[in-house]
């Protein structure tokens, strides 16, 4: 049975979170399909990297280790992955929907003529009957994602082309070690067999890594604002409430696109997925892409002028009214009750 493959992103010699989450998902898919889970790590000075990867249940780890392979550039990573997939013929290949995965994935899928679904929120194994061709496909990967401004949820399949490829954002899948002592095999790749000199035409001149100061993924309390907050100035109230409660400020895509706050605070399908204890949604209508990134919050308070806002349907508390009136009251009565 052809394997499930995960492309492991390497950041400063560490496997990226999103890749570990995908290894976890990949393991459960491989178990269900009764096949092997394989991974590929491409970078430089990767000695010992298997210690971080095998515990997730990886059976075979392919390693491409060369000075020219880090930091990431598209062409050499593409050549290695394409050639390896041609040799190994995986049935499923997963990548993070990160700036690396979204750069590499489409190029690989084009070279292999295999379908790729971006930003999946769920991956499930299932069958498909093509009535026109009178053909039944067993054990396909259902690639599920919101589409069209969040008004629909689409299930995408690749019946005939392999590998079935999907990208998934960080935080969507849950990371879990399968067995700390899990034993896999290492396959070191001979770089000269997988890359050409012309793969190295792009020269990296400068690189600044800016660690995000915002940690919405780890926050237990999130005060999030949408387009309905109305202005950058009105967001100050959200920051004030978040500070009083010891939480972080998040935002919907509409608020980020309007320039109210930075992209690093965006929650939803194309932002960060969060699962805090308390999520206070302020002026957020709650389209599916946003809800996909926060609906597993333990408690949700929705504050909206529209009593019919979709966010209300997943909220534990619905407050109909103006954010600029309600937030100061929350601050006031929180302080009054915690004295």
């Amino acid at each position, binding site marked *: 049975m052809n394997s499930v493959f995960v492309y492991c992103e390497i950041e400063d010699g560490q496997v990226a979170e999103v890749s570990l989450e995908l290894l976890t998902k990949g393991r459960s898919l491989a178990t269900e399909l009764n096949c092997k889970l394989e991974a590929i790590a491409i970078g430089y000075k990767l000695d010992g990297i298997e210690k971080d990867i095998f515990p997730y249940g990886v059976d075979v780890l392919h390693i491409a280790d060369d000075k020219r392979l880090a930091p990431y550039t598209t062409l050499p990573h593409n050549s290695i992955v394409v050639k390896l997939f041609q040799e190994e013929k995986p049935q499923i290949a997963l990548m993070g929907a990160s700036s690396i995965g979204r750069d590499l994935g489409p*190029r690989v899928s*084009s070279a292999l003529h295999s379908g790729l679904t971006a930003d999946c929120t769920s991956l499930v194994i299932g069958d498909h009957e093509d009535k026109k061709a009178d053909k039944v496909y067993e054990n396909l990967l259902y690639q599920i994602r919101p589409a069209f401004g969040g008004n629909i949820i689409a299930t995408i399949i690749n019946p005939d082309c392999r590998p079935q490829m999907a990208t998934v954002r960080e935080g969507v899948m849950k990371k879990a070690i399968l067995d700390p002592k899990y034993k896999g095999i290492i396959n070191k790749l001979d770089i000269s067999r997988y890359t050409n000199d012309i793969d190295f035409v792009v020269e990296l001149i400068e690189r600044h890594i800016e660690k995000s100061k915002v940690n919405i993924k780890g926050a237990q309390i999130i005060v999030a604002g949408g387009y309905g907050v109305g202005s950058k100035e009105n967001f100050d109230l959200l920051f004030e409430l978040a500070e009083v409660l010891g939480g972080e400020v998040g935002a919907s895509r509409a608020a980020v696109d309007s320039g109210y706050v930075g992209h690093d605070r965006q929650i939803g399908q194309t932002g960060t997925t969060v699962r805090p204890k308390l999520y206070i949604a302020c002026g957020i209508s709650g389209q599916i892409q946003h809800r996909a990134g926060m609906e597993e919050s333990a408690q949700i308070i929705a504050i909206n002028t529209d009593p019919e806002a979709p966010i209300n349907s997943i909220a534990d508390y619905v407050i109909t009214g103006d954010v600029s009136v309600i937030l100061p009251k929350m601050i006031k009565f929180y302080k009054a009750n915690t004295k």
Partner: protein
Amino acid sequence: MKGYKIIVLAKQVPDTRNVGKDAMKADGTVNRAALPAIFNPEDLNALEQGLRIKENFPGTTITILTMGPGRAAEIIREGMFRGADDGILLTDRAFAGSDTLATSYALGQALKKIGSYDIIIAGRQAIDGDTAQVGPQVAEKLGLPQITYVEEIQSISKGMITVKRRLEHGVEVVKCPLPLVVTVNSSAPDCRARNAKLIMKYKHAKTISEMQDANDDYLHLYNDRPYLNIKEWTVQDIEVNPIELGLAGSPTKVKKVENVVLQSKGAKVITASDEDMDQLMRELIENHTIG
């Protein structure tokens, strides 16, 4: 200086950011007619990068290439009003149902027909799909290097381009030989406004299909002023393998589309009165959600 030949890949998209209540039909399918069609926002950022090169390197030309229905000629005119020189509309029923790969194949074949180019610039992604796949896939189809997530084209010199990329956790400056494919982020500068003189010059620019509906008074214009002819290409005009087009050429298939149906959790509805707000904060503190 001879300038550069730039192709901007653009898409006309439904404005999914302004989805009204009538955007969905009763059967759960999308009512495209109810959504305004716009120039994909990041493709405008891409056009602006092209226009800046044109300013710095006289002799540079910018061609807008778009694939879509006849009405997509609107965005070619829109681009010309802002400084693009001409445009090509790739339109044919054979392209219907294309996924990103079949789209990239068709665009790639059109680019091969165009033949020569120095820089192909596209928006990072289109707002109707958010996939960010077409740019890299076109690059692969043409065997060109790609640079994605670009915020600024900093310089072009001696056949090398230097660009700044804006990534999730930082910034990169990279250098690459021409020709190449560049995809541009929304963090790049906004596109300049329409220019009044260019509106006057190009407002009657039309594709051949559109000309058939034009008033006789204008028909002579298209002979006298070739720049008013927006090229319209069908599958007949480019070299294609039909099995790589449209639905047949798309590895991904839509198995199922579900309208989003919300089931209420049965929320507590409270008012903004002092009593209710006081009660709410007490409850959250007592059940250890906060505090």
